[in-house]
């Protein structure tokens, strides 16, 4: 085993020599390096010298690495295009279907590398644990103060971006009367028709579905068991099918009733209107559960200024309205409704919901997840 290690040493030496050489070559162009360092440490656009300076620094970097942003999810495709069109920055989108755990793994594995993701769109639990591990750079976007208090980290290491409600999507061409509540789902007429978007121990939206079912059945944020029992009952009656609902199964009619985020279900309605699927979306009144995703900047972002500019873009009226156009509810929606900057057409198209959402605490969420991981298999098999 001498050869590989000697080879490794040579490679290392070579790399070191190359780095030195490149560093020497880059020395005269000190301005960019200075700005990058500055952007890396800055916690607001003002610290860099205002939005203009931030745009200049970001365009100098010219690149933004994003991960886990599916183009058909909450209108991310249009967001990326709009950002690229507005600034001279190329968005490099990696592994669009990745999960939050993959994002955190990518940040950890590629510390200090050029290919590391700059910004992250995370499930709330991963945002919290990532912040605790010191993976994120604190940064306050200009609209930071308008984000509701319960939806941001006090140190601005993460804050919610967009979210939605657990909803019931239903193919009105195949189902005579679409279910409106969780209680409806138990009716015998829905035998072999009800699906979740994945496995709730893995998929955030499926987890939301079980949480909402718990709330609909005398459970609480701290007690998800009634939700698990509800799905056990659905499974026993034959109504529940464990197939993971995807655009393909929806179009095929295999998952004629699908519990999913309202923005995804509403998106399906648009997508399949011309294809013989009349997809209706309702937010069940007996189990109202909303969940938001969170945005964070990688502390060791290879393009720190572009990362910060992306955040400013997402939390501008333009970015928020683009999410809204994808049926997601942006975190600034209440503020934007108040000051009139929210796109009224998009707001009118959102599935109707009564009341304002409330959110489980960290401890409640952990407890619910532990209970789910322990009992879901048993209930369903």
């Amino acid at each position: 085993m001498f050869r590989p290690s000697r080879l490794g040493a040579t490679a290392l030496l070579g790399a070191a020599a190359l780095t030195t050489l490149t560093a020497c070559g880059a020395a005269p162009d000190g301005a960019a390096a200075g700005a990058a360092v500055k952007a890396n440490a800055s916690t607001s656009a003002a610290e860099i010298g205002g939005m203009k300076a931030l745009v200049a620094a970001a365009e100098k970097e010219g690149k933004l690495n994003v991960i886990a942003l599916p183009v058909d999810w909450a209108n991310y495709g249009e967001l990326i295009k709009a950002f690229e069109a507005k600034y001279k920055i190329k968005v490099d989108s990696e592994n669009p279907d990745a999960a939050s755990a993959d994002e955190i793994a990518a940040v950890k594995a590629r510390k200090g590398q050029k290919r590391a993701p700059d910004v992250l769109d995370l499930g709330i639990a991963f945002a919290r644990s990532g912040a605790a591990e010191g993976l994120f750079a604190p940064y306050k976007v200009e609209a930071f103060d308008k984000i509701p208090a319960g939806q941001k980290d006090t140190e601005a290491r993460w804050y919610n971006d967009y979210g939605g409600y657990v909803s019931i999507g239903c193919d009105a061409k195949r189902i005579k009367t679409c279910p409106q509540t969780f209680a409806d789902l138990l009716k015998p007429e829905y035998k072999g028709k009800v699906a979740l978007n994945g496995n709730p121990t893995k998929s955030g939206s499926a987890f939301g579905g079980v949480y909402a079912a718990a709330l609909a059945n005398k459970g609480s944020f701290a007690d998800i068991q009634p939700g698990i029992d509800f799905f056990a009952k659905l499974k026993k009656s034959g109504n529940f099918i464990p197939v993971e609902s995807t655009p393909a199964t929806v179009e095929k009619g295999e998952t004629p009733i699908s519990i999913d985020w309202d923005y995804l279900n509403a998106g399906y309605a648009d997508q399949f209107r011309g294809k013989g699927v009349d997809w209706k979306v309702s937010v069940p009144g007996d189990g109202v559960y909303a969940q938001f995703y969170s945005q964070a900047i990688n502390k060791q972002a290879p393009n720190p200024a572009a990362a910060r500019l992306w955040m400013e873009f997402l939390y501008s009226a333009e970015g928020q309205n683009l999410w809204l156009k994808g049926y997601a509810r942006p975190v600034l929606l209440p503020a934007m409704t108040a000051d009139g900057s929210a796109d009224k057409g998009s707001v009118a198209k959102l599935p109707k919901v009564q009341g304002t959402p409330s959110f489980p605490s960290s401890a409640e969420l952990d407890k619910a997840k532990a209970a789910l991981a322990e009992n879901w298999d048993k209930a369903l098999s």
Partner: protein
Amino acid sequence: MPVPSPSPTGPAGGTRRRRRGPRTWLATLPLLVFTGLCFGLPVAALLYGAVTGTDPATGATRMTGEHLQRSLQGPYLGSLVGSVQLSALTAVIGSVAGVLIAQAVVTSRRTWLRSAALTASGVLANFGGVPLAFAFIATAGISGVVTRLADLESLGWNLYSFTGLAVVYLYFLTPLMVLVIIPALDGLRPQWREAAQNTGATGWQFWRLVGLPVLAPSLLGGFVLLFGSAFAAHATAAALVGGSVPLVTLKIADALSGNVLVGQENVALALSLDMIVIAGLVMAVYLPLQRRSARWLR
């Protein structure tokens, strides 16, 4: 590098063997390096991750048996058991069905049947993952074509269950068995059968005393291969049954790349280690049996 050739009037065998030693070892070096890099390193990383834990607050790493212990409890243990059950069942059925089909093909005089069966097996044995799952959803799912035409639902058919999954697995496991067992069946010489018949053996006696013992190593090998394929399959099951049939590969995926459970990576590694141990146990049963029956072959 010039290699000293052994002198024709060389010394006794012992010395010669000793001199040949280092060169033989050199020849295996690429293999050893490859194995070390592609198998050794991941296993070492797996082992390390399975027995250590990192404190999120301090970042300190310490040894712990906690992950291994968790991987052998509750739903994780259930998923291991579920995987072994499904793999063993499908491997047994797949082996038997595969051998019967292969025997029919081998004894048939029609060459087109043989080439058709081999081609089909080659294609089907590699048909897996999400495309396979969706093919089954479209044909035998709840609103599938076959389900509706044949009214399978009234017969109690449900694709999204343990049985349904076993049927889907057999769809690619049986052709795999056909592929691996046909050469062995070809190796059964007709003369042996004739000799057995000449000495008054019945067909059953021939198979019990000659055919099966000779085939045993290949059969066992095929079974182990099928077991391994089913045990490691992930995408098909993930698309088909989600979390409702507990399988260890699904659990690993949940723990490793999920949106719900935080900090489960090490449990996933521990589960992978459990999988290696189970695969090792299966091999450990297979190897001595194989050696025992291998003496029947030249």
